[in-house]
């Protein structure tokens, strides 16, 4: 893809985000699009958001489950950028109407860093040493691509299908929890929806953050002290609608809730 097409696609996504409207898959319109092109579209999409006033506060990792990787025919995760306008707090209602297109909620472990991490060569030990604490989190993914008809390039370009996120208030040192075996329970409208454990994301949420630090290193981008890193879903995605109430609890960490309006 040439530079002007990349810019065009990034602009198209920015306008789709602003208008809560979806666009046709890029992979249909530009069959030659590569994964690298897709990340450049994502960077252009981010540039437009930042120019409009958003501030980067972290990253998200997506496609961390084997089932989703197989469905998208890839053998690695992807990532997107978190901006301050995506973050919600406990007790705040998360608006779907007029803001999101086809949202789905997923339970995750969020990392908050206290030191920078710049790949390549980052190990799990580096990630644990750089992590101030972990938190329970709901990420609400959304796709600006029509009907979630995504191939890997489409979702990467579309900021890894990131929508909004909400963190729980219980912060735990990574030294105090086994992130690979910690259990997750997700309840929707008072009923058990799904359970999982840390290993559902690439064997451990720590593996996911390590992967991201090394992947971003290829673009010269560090993970920075203070950033929030969403490490990938431990349970299947769940479509949500206004009125839904969900809770996620993680063994040894804590819980987070979200109400959709």
């Amino acid at each position, binding site marked *: 893809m040439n530079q002007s097409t990349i810019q065009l696609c990034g602009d198209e996504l920015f306008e789709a985000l602003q208008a809560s409207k979806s666009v046709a898959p890029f992979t249909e319109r530009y069959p030659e699009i590569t994964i690298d092109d897709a990340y450049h579209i994502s960077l252009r999409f981010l540039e437009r958001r930042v120019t409009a006033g958003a501030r980067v506060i972290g990253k998200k990792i997506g496609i961390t489950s084997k089932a989703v990787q197989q469905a998208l025919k890839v053998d690695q995760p992807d990532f997107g950028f978190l901006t301050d306008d995506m973050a919600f707090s406990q007790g705040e209602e998360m608006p779907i109407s007029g803001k999101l297109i086809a949202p789905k909620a997923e339970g995750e472990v969020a990392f908050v860093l206290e030191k920078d991490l710049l790949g390549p060569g980052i190990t799990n030990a580096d990630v644990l040493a750089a992590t101030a604490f972990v938190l329970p989190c709901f990420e609400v993914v959304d796709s600006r691509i029509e009907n979630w008809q995504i191939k890997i390039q489409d979702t990467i370009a579309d900021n890894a299908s990131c929508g909004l996120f909400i963190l729980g208030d219980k912060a735990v040192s990574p030294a105090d929890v086994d992130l690979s075996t910690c259990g997750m329970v997700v309840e929707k409208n008072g009923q058990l929806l799904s*359970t999982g454990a840390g290993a559902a994301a690439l*064997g451990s949420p720590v593996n996911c953050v390590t992967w991201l630090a090394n992947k971003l290193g290829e673009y010269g981008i560090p993970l920075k002290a203070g950033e929030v890193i969403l490490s990938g879903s431990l349970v299947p995605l769940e479509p949500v609608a206004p009125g839904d109430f969900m809770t996620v609890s993680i063994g040894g960490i804590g819980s987070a809730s979200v109400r959709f309006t």
Partner: protein
Amino acid sequence: MNNLTKQEIAGLAEHLESAELQAFEVTKITDEYPDMTYRDAFDIQWEIRRRKEARGHKIVGMKMGLTSWAKMAQMGVEQPCYGFLADYFAVADGADIEHDKLIHPKIEAELAFVTKEPLKGPGIHIADVLRATDFIMPAVEIIDSRYKDFKFDLKSVIADNSSSTRFISGGTMAKPSDLDLKNLGVVMEINGEVVQTGAGAAVLGHPASSVAMLANMLAERDEEIPAGTFIMIGAITAAVQVNKGDNFCVRYQGLGTVSGKFV
């Protein structure tokens, strides 16, 4: 209420136990006896238990089955089922399991409760169970329905001792007060690859509710859970088929691991 005669119950118990002992498949018994009742089904299971005890085997524990809301909905039932564990079902942690002695085994990640006080229903609830629990430890159940392709209905599976065949316990024991049972995570690996993850809530919303339900179901026969009983609560993960040569390791949050190998 019984719709089967004592002779029919004894005959079906012998039929199903032979299938277990000789590792052959049978068709589900409700095909031939569509009018059998839940009472008949449990009578067949208790007759199999009696046959084993008469040959000198000891009953070393109980198990619960169909303990996820999803599985119950799938089967169109509102109750799980139970079975018993005979002495020769026990396999040591890390030991070999002979695949040829079984039909089409699957493994499930579970927890086991060991009681220190009797639990007699009806009316047993989670708090009663936690108070009566001595300790909790990890367990893996190997299930092996004697029915062709694991296809059965609830009555057939109850009669077939709820598909029980082998179990392994190990890892670390813990007091219930030291565990967050609802959020306790498990990770099942087969041949080094993560195949299932889950958390305690997958079992009836809370692992202790499975033991409460066992006490209440046993009360229907005027039976209780005696002190010192080992009880497996039902699957936290989906059951996964295993083949000869497969090794597995289940990791439990804060409770260590349970492993084994099919040879």
